[in-house]
């Protein structure tokens, strides 16, 4: 079956991203397809590569990144939510005249239409949030 996942909360503050990650891993292990993971609201903060959690803690952004690269997942960060919160890829940072970018490998920035499309194209969409 084809799933999509929406994540509304950032890492560490709330369990939503952790639960979504465990769900995604289990879905892939069970042979399901994940059409897209869409990061919205503070969920866009899962996509920064500049987070440095303590060594004995999980690295949420890195976990997602590795899962995406290993399984060829499409992980989309909402551009409007990302711009509000300072999550930028190199192209967008340049376009905005900013001196830095921070998007982790495995994520891409795109529009809200990607969320609607995920709903249309998937058999199930499940939302994780606060």
């Amino acid at each position, binding site marked *: 079956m084809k799933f999509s996942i*929406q994540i*509304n909360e950032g890492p560490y503050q709330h369990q939503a991203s952790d639960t979504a990650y465990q769900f995604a891993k289990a879905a892939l292990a069970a042979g399901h397809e994940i059409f897209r993971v869409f990061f*919205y*609201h503070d969920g866009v903060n899962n996509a920064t590569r500049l987070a440095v959690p303590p060594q004995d803690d999980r690295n949420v952004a890195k976990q997602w990144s590795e899962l995406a690269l290993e399984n060829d997942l499409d992980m989309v960060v909402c551009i*409007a*939510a990302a711009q509000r919160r300072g999550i930028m890829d190199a192209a967008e940072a340049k376009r905005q005249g900013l001196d830095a970018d921070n998007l982790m490998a495995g994520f891409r920035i795109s*529009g*809200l*239409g990607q*969320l*609607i*499309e995920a*709903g*249309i194209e*998937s058999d199930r*969409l499940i*939302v994780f*949030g606060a």
Partner: protein
Amino acid sequence: MAIKKFMYTNRKAPYGTVYALESLEVVLIGAAFDQDVSLAFIGDGVYQLTKGQTTEAIGQKNFSPVYAALGDYDVNKIYIEKESLEERGLSLDDLQHLVWEDEDEDWAEKDSIRLVSRSELADVMTEQEIILSF
């Protein structure tokens, strides 16, 4: 592209958190996809639709006028849970009057808001294929 039944469930009040505003942004973008869209306002979500929101003093943009434009985007199935409204001491008179124009009936103006009981809304929710929660 297939047409699916989409429901947006709005359960959070505006301004205190960003969910209401960013949910509305999804609804507006989603309208371009010509899906079968319903909006549900449950719990504190009903506060999103109060009349007379005035936000200058809190330094945020008042986005409540956008709800009145939803009819123009063919978003005209707006369900308000009756129990939620009543337990907050509100009635439909306290909410914006949202309308849409029915192109099949010579652009007759019709109410977008459907005041429904929890059990009625539960039936509508069960018919949905995709539920986006905010």
